[in-house]
C-alpha cells in the first residue's frame, strides 16, 4: 500500500496553499479512481496506530504493575470502571457535537490525542494508586474526545462510495498498534524485569509522535461545501438534530442498540474459554491480541464488502460472527482449535461492525451532523454493551456459563433478523440517504 504523509486531502486544503503543493494537488486530483483511499486516512491510521501502541502497552502491564510494584490489590480498580465508561460516553457525544459546530474536527481530535499524551507524562511520575487513577481517567476522556471527530475527518477525506474501505484501512492500522503495544510491553519486561518506567517512557514517546503527525500532516478537512458557502457569504447551515434523531439514523441507532444489548463483550467469551481449556488459560493475557490480529486482517475486506453490498447489511450480518463465537465458546470442545476458531469469529465480527458502523452513521447523516451522528452511534453501542455485560453476569450465575451463552446466542439470532428487517429500507444502499 502506498503510504504518504502528503498534506493533501481529497478536496484539497484551502487553508495552506503552498507553491510546492500545487503540482501535487493537480497530480492527485486526476487519478482519483486509482487511489481508493486518501492519504489523510492513512495518516490518521498511523496516528491511531501509534496511539494504540502507546495505550495498549500500558494497559497490558498495568495490573502487573499495580500488584507487583506498587504492592496494591487491584480490587479498587474495577469499581471505577463503570464511571469511566459513563464519562467516556458523555464526552464522546459532546466532542462530536463540538466538532460539528466548530467545523474544526482536526483540532478537537488533536485535543483528545493531546490529553492522552499528557496523561502519559503523569504515568512517569504517578506513584500512588490515586494518581494512577487520575492518569487513566484523563486517558479515557482523551479517547472519548478524539474518536468521533477523527471518524468524521476520515469521512470527509473519503469518496462516499469507498467509505467502508477507508474505515477498513484505518481500523487495520489502528489494530496493528493494538497488537504491537502489549507485545512491546511484555518484550521490554522480558529484557528488563522491572522495566515499567521504560514502558511508560516508550508509551509517552509513541503518543507524542502520534500527536505530532496529527498536528503536522493531517489537514483540517472541513466540510466540502464550507468554502463555497463562505464565499457566498451565506450563513452556515444550521445544525439539525433531526438528522441524527429521526429518519434512517434513528433506525441505525435503534438497531445498533438492540445488537449492542446482546454483545456481552469478549471478556466473558475469554472467561468461558479459559474455564474449560488449559490452552486458553495459559494464553489468557494474549487472547485479545489474537482477536485484534484477525480484526486487522479482515477490516479492509469487510470494508470493501460493505461498500459493495451495503454497510447496513455487513453491520447486521457481521453479528453472525459474534453468534458463532458464542456457540463455539459454549460447545463442549475444549481444545486449541475451539479457542482459535472463537478468536477468528470475534475478530471477524469486529472487522464487520466497528469501522462499518462509523461508515454507516456517516452515510446516514449530513456533513453538518456527521461528528454527532458517528458519536451517537458509537455511544449507543458502548452503553448498550455495558448494559449487556452486567445483564449477562446475572444469567451467568443463574443459568451457568454454557447455558447463558446459548441463551444470548439464541436472542442474538432473533435480534439479527429483527434488525435486518428494521434496516430494510437501506440494507443494501451504499449512498447517503439523508444527504
Amino acid at each position, binding site marked *: 500500500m502506498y503510504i504518504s504523509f502528503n498534506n493533501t486531502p481529497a478536496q484539497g486544503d484551502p487553508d495552506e496553499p503552498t507553491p510546492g503543493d500545487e503540482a501535487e494537488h493537480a497530480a492527485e486530483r486526476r487519478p482519483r479512481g486509482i487511489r481508493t483511499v486518501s492519504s489523510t486516512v492513512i495518516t490518521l491510521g498511523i496516528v491511531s496506530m501509534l496511539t494504540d501502541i502507546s495505550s495498549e502497552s500500558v494497559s497490558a502491564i498495568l495490573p502487573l504493575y499495580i500488584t507487583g510494584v506498587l*504492592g496494591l490489590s*487491584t480490587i479498587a480498580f*474495577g469499581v471505577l470502571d463503570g464511571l*469511566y465508561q459513563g464519562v467516556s460516553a458523555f464526552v464522546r457525544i459532546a466532542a462530536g457535537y463540538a466538532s460539528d459546530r466548530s467545523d474544526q474536527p482536526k483540532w478537537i481530535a488533536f485535543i483528545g490525542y493531546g490529553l492522552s499524551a499528557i496523561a502519559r507524562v503523569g504515568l512517569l511520575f504517578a506513584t500512588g494508586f490515586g494518581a494512577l487513577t487520575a492518569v487513566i481517567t484523563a486517558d479515557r476522556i482523551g479517547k472519548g474526545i478524539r474518536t468521533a471527530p477523527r471518524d468524521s475527518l476520515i469521512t470527509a477525506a473519503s469518496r462516499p462510495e469507498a467509505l467502508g474501505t477507508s474505515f477498513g484501512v484505518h481500523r487495520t492500522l489502528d489494530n496493528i498498534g493494538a497488537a504491537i503495544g502489549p507485545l512491546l510491553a*511484555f518484550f521490554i519486561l522480558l529484557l528488563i*524485569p522491572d522495566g515499567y518506567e521504560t514502558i511508560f517512557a*516508550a508509551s509517552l514517546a509513541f503518543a507524542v509522535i502520534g500527536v505530532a503527525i496529527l498536528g503536522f500532516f493531517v489537514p483540517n478537512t472541513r466540510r466540502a461545501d464550507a468554502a463555497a458557502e463562505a464565499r457566498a457569504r451565506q450563513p452556515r447551515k444550521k445544525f439539525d438534530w433531526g438528522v441524527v434523531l429521526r429518519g434512517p439514523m434513528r433506525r441505525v441507532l435503534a438497531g445498533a442498540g438492540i445488537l449492542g444489548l446482546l454483545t456481552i*463483550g469478549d471478556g466473558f467469551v475469554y472467561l468461558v474459554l479459559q474455564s474449560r481449556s488449559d490452552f486458553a488459560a495459559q494464553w489468557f493475557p494474549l487472547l485479545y491480541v489474537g482477536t485484534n490480529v484477525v480484526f486487522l486482517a479482515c477490516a479492509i475486506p469487510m470494508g470493501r464488502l460493505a461498500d459493495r453490498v451495503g454497510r447496513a447489511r455487513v453491520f447486521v450480518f457481521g453479528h453472525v460472527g459474534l453468534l458463532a463465537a458464542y456457540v463455539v465458546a459454549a460447545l463442549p470442545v475444549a481444545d486449541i482449535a475451539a479457542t482459535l476458531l472463537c478468536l477468528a469469529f470475534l475478530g471477524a465480527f469486529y472487522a464487520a461492525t466497528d469501522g462499518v458502523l462509523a461508515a454507516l452513521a456517516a452515510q446516514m447523516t449530513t456533513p453538518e451532523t456527521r461528528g454527532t451522528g458517528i458519536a451517537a452511534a458509537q455511544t449507543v453501542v458502548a452503553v448498550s454493551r455495558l448494559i449487556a455485560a452486567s445483564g449477562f453476569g446475572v444469567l451467568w450465575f443463574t443459568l451457568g456459563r454454557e447455558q447463558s451463552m446459548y441463551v444470548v446466542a439464541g436472542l442474538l439470532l432473533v435480534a439479527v433478523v429483527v434488525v435486518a428487517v428494521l434496516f430494510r429500507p437501506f440494507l443494501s444502499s451504499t449512498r447517503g440517504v439523508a444527504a
Partner: protein
Amino acid sequence: MTNRVKWILLTVICVVALGTTAVIGAVAWQSTQDRDTAPSVVETTGAPVTGDRIMFRNTAAGAGYGHVASVPLDDPEAARSLLGVACDRLDATTDEIACLRTVRGIAPSFVALVLDPSGAEQASWPLAGIPSRTRISGDGTLVATTSFVTGHSYATVGFSTETVIRGADGSDHGNLEDFALTIEGAPFTAIDRNFWGVTFADDTVFYATAASGGRMWLVRGDLAARTLTSIAEGVECPSLSPDGTRIAFKHTASGSGSTVHWQPAILDLATGAVELLPEKRSIDDQIEWLDDDTILYGMPREATPGDSDVWSLAADGSAEPTVFLEHAWSPAVVRAAR
C-alpha cells in the same frame, strides 16, 4: 509551515522521544544487571534453617531478590537462608511450600507450585491471573490460592478474583464461585460476587472474603458440603489465629475504590467483637499470626518500588507496630510442632 519544516520537526521529535526512551531503558537494564549480580544488601547463607522459622519472599536488593528465604523465628535478624526459588506469594509448613509465581514471557503466565522444603517441585497448576494470596491448611493437605483475573485492560471485564482450593498433590477441590453462598441467611446469587483470602481452620472448615456490590462479608466455608455462609460484614482478607478463636483482617477505615484505607483489626469469633489496631498506614496484605498475641503483615517501602518490610503488631492493640523483618514480603510462620 512548509512540508520540509514539518518533516524536520517530526524527525527531531521522533529522535528525542525514542532516544530518551532508549536511554531510560538502557539505564534500567544496567541497574537491573547491577542489582542481580551485586551481593545482597543483607547477609545470606545457603545452609537451611531447621526448627521454628519464618519463610518469606526476600526483597533485599542484590542477588537472591524475590527468592524464598527463611530465618529462625527467634532470631529474624540472622543471615537469611536462600532457597534459590522465586515466588511472588508463599505459605509454608514444615513439609511443603505453596508458591505463586509470575512467569515472564511474551505472554506472561502465572503458576502455583507446591515445593518440598528443599525447593523441589511436587505439584503445579496454572493460575488464571496475577498471584494475590495463598494459604496451606494446618496438616498440609490443602492449598488455597487467590489470583486476579484482569483480562487485558481496565475496560473489558472489570475486576474479578479467582479463588480455588486444591490438594497439595494438585487435585482440584473447586472454585469458590461454584460453592453455594448464603448471605445473612438467604441464598445469594448476585452477578458480581468475588472471593478471596482463604484461611483454613482444618481440612473441612475455612474462612474467606465474599464481596458483591461494594459490600463484603466474612464467610465460613465447608469444603465437604461445598457451602459458604456469611458470619460477619466488613471483614476482608481473614486470617485465623493459631488458637482458632479470632480472625485478623483488613478493616475499611475510610474511603472506597482508589482512596480506600485499610486498618488491621481483630474479630473475636465467639462474641463478634471487633478491635481496631493502632496502625496509621493503610495495609494491603493477608495478615499472618506470629503467635496468639502478635500479627505480621507486609508493608511496601514507598521510596523503593518492589521492596517492602514485614511489620509486627500486638494483637490486643497494646503497642505500636514495629519492623519485624526488613526487605521481606509474604511471611509464613513455620512451627515444627504444629
